[in-house]
Structures are given as C-alpha cells and as structure tokens.
C-alpha cells in the first residue's frame, strides 16, 4: 500500500529525516544515514576554516540519493536566518530551508515571532520553508498561513533526548494542520519516534539521539523501525483508552 510523504509536491517514502551533525566521524554519519534509509538529511551553513580546510561533508553524502535540507542554525534573528537561507540556496543544491531562529543558547527554543517574520520573507523569495517551532498550535497555524510547507514542532529541547513533554499539544497541531507536521528535536529513543508517528505526525527529524548513541548506525536503524511501527499503528487505528477492563475472551459459555 502506498503511503507517501508529500512535502511541497515532492514524494518521499521514508518518514525519518536525519541530521548530519555531531557524529564522531564522517564514516559513522554515512553509515547511519544508510541504516536509517533516510531520504531527507539536514545540513548547516558555516564559514570555511581557512587554516584547516579539511574534508567536505558532501564527499560523504550522495546527492543522487539524499535530498538536502539546509538549516539556518546559528541564526539568532530573522535577518541572520534569511542571510543563511540565501547562502544555502546559493550552493545550488536545494531550495528547501529548515528555518531556525534561535536567540537563547541555554534552551535553544525558537523565537517564534522572528521565525514567522522570516517565513513570510523567504516564502516571497521562493524558498520552500520548513520552520522549526514550539509546540504551540496557534503559532503553527500562523506559520502555515505564512506559506510554510511543513511545521516542525519540538518534542522537547534540541539535543535533550527527553522525549515528549506534552504529546497532547503535538496532537492538537496535527489535528489542525493542513501541512505535514514533522516532530523535530528532543526525541531520544525509538519509542519517542513511534509515539510521534502514532499521534499522526507525518515525519520526525532526529540528529543527536542517533549521532551520540554508542552505536549510531544501530540506533539509526532502530529509529527507522520505530517510525515505521508508529506510522503503521496510526494507519491501523488505535483502540480507545478505557477506564476499566474489557475481557478478551467470550463472557458467555464459561464453564461453571
């Protein structure tokens, strides 16, 4: 049965997006992307270190296989995010942009006002904008109105691995959204990823939980399975939660 993820008219099969940061080695990153069977991978834009040029990330990412989703990480204001987005697009590899406006290094929570402002401008400039946001359904709706092609609410703080603070808020966003909801940030284990998908999220994005696991490729594969299980459960339709027991065996014909 076909169950495609469609973002801005582009079709994807795998609902696990993977970040490329924080791996101990480039080889581990490459193996993890393969184990996750990722189709969409995030990248960042940074100054080149002119004293030590090193290897290019792109030597490890097969562009025929992966869709690049550059982010604006490092931007504390809408203006900085817009500049990073333009630089990312100028590389000529993707017009997608994962928009992040993050002024506070302690929480890495998004500035939703700046994010909304930057979304409006980038959409006008023809970008395909996937904004990182809080789990606030009002803001999510405004981002969608501004032309965002997905909304990417956090489960909890970036890199924290804490899982969901309040899944009901993500449910509310999903219920109201007309664009795919991608749960981004804070997922720690496959059960978190599965929960996101069970709630009806269209996809999840995971970086730290894979990159900083003891065995990143193995964690990547487990996340892939978590996402798949959660998606299947969502499609299958869960039973309602009851206050009391409901017998599984017939209540009639019991031997007395």
């Amino acid at each position, binding site marked *: 049965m076909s169950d495609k993820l469609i973002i801005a008219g582009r079709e994807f099969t795998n609902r696990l997006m993977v*970040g*490329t*940061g*924080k*791996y101990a080695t*480039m080889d581990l*990153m490459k193996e993890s992307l393969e184990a996750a069977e990722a189709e969409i991978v*995030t*990248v*960042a*834009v*940074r*100054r*080149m270190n*002119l004293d030590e*040029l090193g290897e*290019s*990330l*792109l030597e490890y990412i097969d562009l025929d296989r992966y869709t*690049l989703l*550059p*982010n604006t*990480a490092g931007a504390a204001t809408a203006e900085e995010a817009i500049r990073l987005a*333009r*630089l*990312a697009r*100028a*590389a*000529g*590899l993707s017009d997608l942009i994962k928009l992040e406006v993050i002024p506070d290094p302690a929480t890495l929570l998004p500035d939703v006002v700046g994010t909304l402002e930057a979304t409006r401008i980038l959409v006008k400039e023809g970008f395909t904008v996937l904004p990182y946001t809080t789990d606030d359904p009002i803001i999510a709706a405004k981002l969608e109105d501004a032309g965002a092609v997905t909304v990417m609410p956090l489960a909890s703080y*970036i*890199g924290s691995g804490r899982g969901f603070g309040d899944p009901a808020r993500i449910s509310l966003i999903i219920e109201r959204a007309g664009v795919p909801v991608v749960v981004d940030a804070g997922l720690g284990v496959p059960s978190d990823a599965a929960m996101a998908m069970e709630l009806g999220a269209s996809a999840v*994005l995971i*970086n*730290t939980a894979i990159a900083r696991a003891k065995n990143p490729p193995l964690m990547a594969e487990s996340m892939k399975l978590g996402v798949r299980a959660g998606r299947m459960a969502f499609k299958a339709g869960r039973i309602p939660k009851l206050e009391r027991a409901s017998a599984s065996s017939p209540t009639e014909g019991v031997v007395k």
Partner: protein
Amino acid sequence: MHIIVNGQDKEVPAGTTLGGLMELLKVDSRRVVVEYNREIINRSSWKEHISRELQEGDTLELVQLVGGG
C-alpha cells in the same frame, strides 16, 4: 592590500581577483559559496565573477555546507 575574509585580516597582492583569491587560499571553488561585500554569488554564476578585482577593505564570507541538525 588588506581584505577581510571570514572575519580575518588578509594581505593579498593588488589586482587579486575573486578567482585568484580562491587559488591563493587553496579553496576548492566547487564547494564554497562566496558572499562578496554582502552580495551572495550563486554557485551557478560563479564563472561570471572570477575575474572581478578585489579592492582594499573588501569583506568576504566563504561558507560551505557542514554537518548539522
């Protein structure tokens, strides 16, 4: 003459071009995105810009895609 590249002061010969600067810095022009005095140069039009001569005090950002989440 002095220019500023990625926040660092650099001394380059007068008449250095954008293309020449990449050679000087040993930067692979296929992986870099150049912002020249705040003007972003698309990779696809890079060739049209390589012979532009740098001026005293020019500011450049040389960026690339790196691992990120």
